[in-house]
């Protein structure tokens, strides 16, 4: 069984949809960076878009982009990961409910507040009756979606899958998370993030969408070799998991060209990645990306986008390399390692093909 990423699309703090930014990513010094939106009118007609919050428009636009690229308009599965779901509409409903004392509430905000609105809107737009689901497990929501798709390919239940990760960050939610030390208090820049000597990162948004298929075509970007989730794993469990993953594909530690991590400047967060590298991949170059996108529950979708693009282009600009080395043995295998608050952990292995 092989699974290939056939097309990818993203909307983030970097230029949306295309790849031009990849070799020249923008840098930020703010604590809160919102995504750059494409012209949604190119994807969704205004009558359809009028009730949608930002996250839904982004989800639909990125989905339609991968559908357009691949021509797969009825994927066998539509799976979305979202840590917070449609938080903008949730807030609108919640605010009105608290403010107006449960009176005059608008149904639109409610019906577009649930997490599964995203997957179902995509299905609705595509008129796709097939498998449709949504994962909301904080920082591993995207990986959960990928795992679901992976297993269904493995079981031969599907031949194609649209897998996405979407999270928006509203001003109000930014303030709430600021109260619980999600964000740094002072100025944010690459040097500060690299230092990792205080709590918090900076806030970003992430929308990414991938079309997976079980056959290789001219479009194929890279191969999805594996995805695994772990809850509170011991170092021993992690070691075992890495060995299993590598041996399943006849690989050796040295075959992993880059480990792409979720280092984000938060000291409690980053120490886990440093330990991971020391224990398991002491010789392998370590890469990061959240300094260019901000922290978001489904940032791993962007990590997947970056790793896939790097494999496709066979270039990983030094901007993404944590230890600033630029000489790589190759870009055939990238391991994405992500953890959320050291509880939820995930591995994704991508490979050239």
């Amino acid at each position: 069984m092989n699974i290939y990423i056939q097309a990818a699309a993203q909307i983030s703090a970097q230029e949306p949809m295309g790849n031009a930014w990849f070799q020249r990513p923008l840098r930020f010094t703010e604590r809160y960076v919102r995504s750059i939106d494409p012209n949604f009118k190119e994807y969704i007609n205004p009558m359809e878009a009028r009730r949608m919050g930002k996250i839904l428009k982004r989800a639909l636009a990125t989905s339609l982009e991968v559908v357009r690229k691949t021509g797969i308009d009825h994927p066998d599965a539509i799976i979305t990961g979202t840590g917070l779901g449609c938080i903008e509409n949730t807030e609108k409903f919640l605010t009105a409910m608290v403010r107006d004392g449960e009176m005059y509430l608008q149904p639109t905000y409610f019906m577009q507040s649930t997490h599964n609105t995203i997957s179902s809107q995509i299905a609705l737009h595509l008129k796709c009756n097939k498998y449709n689901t949504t994962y909301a497990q904080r920082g591993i929501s995207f990986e959960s979606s990928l795992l679901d798709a992976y297993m269904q390919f493995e079981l031969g239940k599907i031949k194609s899958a649209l897998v996405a990760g979407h999270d928006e960050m509203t001003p109000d939610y930014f303030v709430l998370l600021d109260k619980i030390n999600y964000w740094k208090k002072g100025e944010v820049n690459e040097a500060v993030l690299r230092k990792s000597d205080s709590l918090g990162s900076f806030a970003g948004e992430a929308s990414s969408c991938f079309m997976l298929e079980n056959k290789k075509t001219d479009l194929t970007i890279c191969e999805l070799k594996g995805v695994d989730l772990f809850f509170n794993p011991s170092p021993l469990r992690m070691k075992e998991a890495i060995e299993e993953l590598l041996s399943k594909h006849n690989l050796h530690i040295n075959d992993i060209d880059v480990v792409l991590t979720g280092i984000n400047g938060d000291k409690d967060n980053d120490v886990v990645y440093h330990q991971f590298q020391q224990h398991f991949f002491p010789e392998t170059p370590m890469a990061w990306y959240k300094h260019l996108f901000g922290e978001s529950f489904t940032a791993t979708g962007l990590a997947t986008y970056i790793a896939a693009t790097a494999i496709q282009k066979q270039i990983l600009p030094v901007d993404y390399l944590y230890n600033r080395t630029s000489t790589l043995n190759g870009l055939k295998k990238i391991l994405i390692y992500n953890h959320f608050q050291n509880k939820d952990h995930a591995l994704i292995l991508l490979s050239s093909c």
Partner: protein
Amino acid sequence: MEALILELKKEIIEVLNLEEIKPEDIDENAPLFGEGLGLDSIDALELIVLMEKNYGIKLNNASEGRDIFKSVRVMAEYIEKNRTK
């Protein structure tokens, strides 16, 4: 009456997020659902909220709206007759 119709048009545009549409684009005699503006059942629910919030008219059942929301003019006539604020 004409003032109410204009007011209603503006309110409908706002509450239904009909960004591209101006009040003069809405024919007050044309059906709101299906053919005309192409509104759907969720819009009907939003209009029910609008009726209650702005005019104090409480509809308990979505199907009651079916007759009232035939057109902007019908809506306005109904409001004139039944408004409590």
